[in-house]
């Protein structure tokens, strides 16, 4: 097989596109981790619920795809906030508070994951459903060398970048964003500054789950939507978050893109049937040579 530069370029372009989706899920996981010290194991299910909410809105209610995307983000954000408020918060400082107890939270996250999957079976059924979205108004990109990028991929790239830029703007340039960062760093001091800490925690959870929902609706038209889709996404988003440095927001995006490229190249040049392995291969390599991840802080100091 001769080396074809054009197809290499194509694999990288597709890798980046799928990678930014891993990136926005990983962004949510990192946001929750840096904000609340919770490693959120039910995050894949938020992604799955987001995809289903989008599907129901687009097919059953019949709203246009962009509205379905926004609607799914809002609904999933509300679901995530409810889950945090009702279940996770009870485990924090004996129900009153905001500093988290480790192992109980991990088990609660796993349990929530199982519960949500089964709830989804109940509501949405076990069939994999195709997500038909009318995307004719999105231009199909053609790169030199006859590389055609389908509409759904173009849309995914655009929306992901918009979401990341929006989150960055919110965290760096708004007062509420400043308060979120303050809560992430030290909840007691944020409290003393007059920040309504429980409200900010709800906000962090809502944002993170909304991002996961966006990923679900974006992936929908590329693959189909089904109840078990969250598990693999969670694993890959974890890989992305760890590769980038757990808790680092830029790291989550870069890690996502790396995982996307790595698995596309692996599928193309090594073996397509082992596509899902390459993300973890990358994870192992990064952990061997730079355990804190690419953007990670060595042993984060927490007060």
């Amino acid at each position, binding site marked *: 097989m001769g080396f074809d530069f054009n197809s290499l370029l194509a694999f990288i372009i597709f890798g980046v596109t799928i990678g930014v989706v891993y990136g926005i899920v990983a962004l949510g996981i990192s946001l929750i981790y840096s904000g609340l010290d919770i490693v959120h194991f039910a995050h894949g299910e938020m992604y799955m619920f987001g995809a289903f909410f989008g599907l129901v809105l687009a097919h059953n209610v019949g709203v246009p795809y962009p509205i379905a995307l926004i609607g799914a983000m809002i609904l999933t954000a509300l679901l995530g906030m409810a889950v945090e408020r009702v279940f996770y918060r009870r485990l924090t400082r004996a129900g009153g508070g905001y500093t988290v107890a480790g192992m109980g939270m991990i088990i609660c996250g796993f349990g929530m994951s199982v519960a949500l999957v089964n709830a989804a079976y109940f509501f949405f059924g076990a069939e994999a459903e195709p997500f038909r979205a009318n995307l004719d108004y999105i231009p199909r990109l053609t790169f030199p060398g006859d590389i055609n990028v389908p509409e759904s991929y173009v849309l995914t790239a655009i929306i992901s970048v918009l979401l990341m830029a929006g989150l960055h703007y919110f965290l760096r340039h708004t007062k509420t964003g400043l308060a979120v960062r*303050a809560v992430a760093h*030290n909840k*007691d*001091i944020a*409290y*003393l*500054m*007059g*920040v*309504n800490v429980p409200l900010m925690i709800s906000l962090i959870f809502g944002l993170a789950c909304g991002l996961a929902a966006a990923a679900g609706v974006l992936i929908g038209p590329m693959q189909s939507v089904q109840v078990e889709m969250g598990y693999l996404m969670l694993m890959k988003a974890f890989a992305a978050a760890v590769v980038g440095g757990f808790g680092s927001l830029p790291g989550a995006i870069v890690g996502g893109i790396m995982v996307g490229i790595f698995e596309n190249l692996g599928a193309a040049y090594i073996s397509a049937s082992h596509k899902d392995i390459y993300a973890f291969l990358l994870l192992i390599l990064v952990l061997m040579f730079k355990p804190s991840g690419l953007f990670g802080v060595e042993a984060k100091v927490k007060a």
Partner: protein
Amino acid sequence: MLEVKDVHAGYGNLKILRGINMDVPTGGIVTLLGGNGTGKSTLLKAVSGLIPLMQGDVFFNGVNISKMKPHQRMRLGLVQVTQAKEAYPAMTVEENLVLGAYTRKDREGTRADLEKVYEFFPVLRERRKQLSGTLSGGEVQMLVIGRGLMAAPKMLMLDEPSAALAPKVVLEIFANINRIAKSGVTILVVEQNVRMALILAQYGYIIRDGVIMMQGEADNLISDPAVKDSFLGGSVADTSKSLRN
């Protein structure tokens, strides 16, 4: 302004404070003195609401705030300045200060107060774009005090402003605390540096093992032989004298 009545508090089942009574009158500087592990910081946390009370009440301007959350107490004007190590190192100096004014809606007043803080502590203006993690110990202390001022407090509670600082820097900081008090802010300062704190304050409380052991006018406390023995550290004072000779 602040009344603490028979307060019991602690962590989990561990009771640290066992019936504290304290009064901070409007416009004054009151100091709370005690060594490590005597309950000073616990009392501050109980007053600012970071830990719940087991028993007793806290009143601020006549309002019972015992059941309020920290951010609600803070919005009444009862502002706790945290220990210096608790600035946000990954935020710039100015971001830290803006965060102090988080609850305020009046932009002009906030801007004027930012200017006032920069006047109090000119070094903060020089460093305003720097990450606060890069400041020296004294500068961080100025930053957390400035951050407290940004909230337009009626009363400031300071947690060991002299901790781990050189004597010259402590003097500068205490002079500024005095200026802040003169500008009309009531001050409660928790200290281990007993001599400095008693020179600054008008009234002092001495806490030990979770109870107020002694209280009185600062001038009386500083010359009290019991205080001298147990706190001004007769031995330490003598050592420094012998070093000088």
